[in-house]
């Protein structure tokens, strides 16, 4: 069966005065219908740029400089702007981090929701509002009729993010890309939004790409995790594999540095140093300056993703033999 989304050797460059800067360097992954993938990494790893490039929202000076993004049989990276516009917000929806930035403060929720429907469907405004009402009920908004006439500032942060989710659902998309959807929210509200996303994806058989820095959050929602570092995927596999049997030294470091469940007497395991900036990505394996198991060849040759143990679990590391 063909995949819903197949990203192959994606490369995103930023054209700067002194030359091109590579932000995404050969990222490949697939997503099936109804599958949930977590893109994890620290700031600057390239996870958001990857998400944005799928719907071609990379703004200048950035551009897709190589690879393909095949979605429902079409290569999105080659589409003209008008064709892309028809897919974006219709077949693929995006949810951003800050609901206050996503919603327009001067229009009512009803107006904003109807606008999205009317942009993609040939229906009357009345029908569009009916659809909006239906979706607000799906995301468990209390008294949805009243909400349609309200403005974003009249609602709490969690409520606003539910409305953003409802807007994303309006066109029954096949894929939702959520970029840190709960980072700005409190834990009790985050738990509710994550439950909701999971439930909706399962019920409607939607694909989900969840972009976040929080490994614990993705581990609860997704079936598959891709860990990114300095513009590349360095480990990818089923969630259960990545969480319980991480192979790449960076993934291990990330999991070990979580303070969860440790007593105050223990020191946290820390990864020395920090993520390199795009201007000086180290040669060879980009992680080698921070790695505890590096060898001479790590500085020379960049490791490619290679299968490891379990099916579908791939790791980009030369020294897998040394890691038990």
């Amino acid at each position, binding site marked *: 069966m063909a995949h819903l989304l197949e990203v192959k050797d994606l490369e995103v460059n930023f054209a700067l005065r002194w030359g091109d800067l590579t932000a995404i360097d050969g990222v490949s992954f697939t997503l099936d219908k109804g599958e949930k993938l977590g893109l994890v990494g620290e700031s600057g790893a390239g996870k958001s740029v990857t998400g944005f490039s799928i719907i071609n929202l990379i703004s200048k000076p950035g551009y897709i400089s190589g690879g393909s993004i095949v979605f429902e049989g079409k290569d999105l990276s080659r589409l003209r702007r008008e064709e892309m516009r028809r897919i974006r917000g219709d077949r693929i929806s995006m949810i951003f981090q800050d609901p206050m930035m996503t919603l327009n403060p001067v229009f009512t929720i009803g107006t904003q929701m109807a606008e999205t429907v009317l942009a993609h469907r040939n229906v009357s405004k009345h029908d569009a509002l009916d659809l909006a009402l239906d979706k607000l009920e799906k995301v468990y908004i209390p008294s949805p009729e009243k909400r349609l006439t309200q403005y974003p500032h009249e609602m709490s942060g969690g409520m606003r993010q539910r409305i953003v989710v409802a807007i994303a659902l309006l066109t029954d998309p096949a894929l939702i890309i959520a970029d840190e959807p709960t980072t700005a929210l409190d834990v009790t509200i985050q*738990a509710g939004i994550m439950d909701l996303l999971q439930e909706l994806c399962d019920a409607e058989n939607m694909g989900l790409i969840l972009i976040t820095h929080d490994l614990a959050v993705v581990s609860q929602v997704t079936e598959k995790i891709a860990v990114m570092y300095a513009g590349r995927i360095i480990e990818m596999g089923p969630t259960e594999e990545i969480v319980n049997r991480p192979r790449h030294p960076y993934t291990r470091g990330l999991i070990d540095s979580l303070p969860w469940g440790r007593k105050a007497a223990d020191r946290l395991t820390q990864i020395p140093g920090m993520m390199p900036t795009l201007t000086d990505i180290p040669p060879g394996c980009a992680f080698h300056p921070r790695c505890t198991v590096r060898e001479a060849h790590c500085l020379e040759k960049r490791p490619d993703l290679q299968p490891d143990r379990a099916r579908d679990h791939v790791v980009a590391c030369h020294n897998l033999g040394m890691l038990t």
Partner: protein
Amino acid sequence: MEENTPLLTIENLVKHFDISGGLLDQISFEGRRFVRKRTVVKAVNNVSFEIQPGETLSVVGESGCGKSTLARTVLGLYPPNEGKVLYQGARIDDLSPQEMLPFRAKMQMIFQDPYASLNPRMTVARILEEPVVFHRKVRTAAEVRDKVAQVMEQVGVDPKWSDRYPHEFSGGQRQRISIARALTVDPDFIVADEPVSALDVSIQAQILNLMMDAQEEFGLTYMFITHDLSVVEHISTRVAVMYLGTVCELAPVDELFDSPRHPYTKALLSAIPRLGETKPKHIKLKGEVVTPINLPSGCVFHRRCHFADDRCSREIPLLRRLDSGAHVACHGVEEGRIS
């Protein structure tokens, strides 16, 4: 100092903010009359606790629960409306700025955003010299330089970089500089307001380790404000859970995480995402988030609580000590309705 004197005591602290604006904003027309209404944010309501020397007391809660206001009121950055703040038994909330000075050197603060809390137009050296010179900790210029180099080394920032500006550093390094600034005046007590919330996980671990090392080395006492419960479990001695300006549970860290008593604490703990738990069973709170402008009568949590009864909506529960050593403010726990 006498044994058992708490380093810091706060008694019945209340901090309200009047946000009603000018007279014209306050007046509205209701029932054929003009009425004047004030809008007050009741950020902190009747909070009392003690912090013992050498311990880390964490204050946790969701946004808007008053934890940052509490921190700032404790340090005297906001004057309290009611209640007292005592430092080693001496009252400090009613002192003049002059009288407050010696206490300011003993109490320092680390802020959340290292991008906003360091002056972008000062070099690191000047940022770090300022408190040393201001509090007259050392006399000569050479001593000031030595002190700055010493604290920079302590926090793991190379003293060679002291001529650089904050924008030349990464977030983690900036937070190290913030910590260095707090350490320059040899404080006893540090209030850290979300010190690692803006940082990536691997950097967060570095900063938490640094803070714990500094605590051990200098015998520091921390009041740690955060919403991140996984950090709290790691770093604290005791934890105070706040909801809408009141402390609903205060307990030693193990006690709180092993057997939370207050229904809000239980819901909060159940909502933390844990690595590798595929189907978390978190407790869903009912109702909507309440703002601190219109505080509910009785227990502030009663509208969201599954166990609330008539008494909860009338009577404000007080923080009571249980046999386990935990303090809980809940009628249900007191009556034995909630296990």
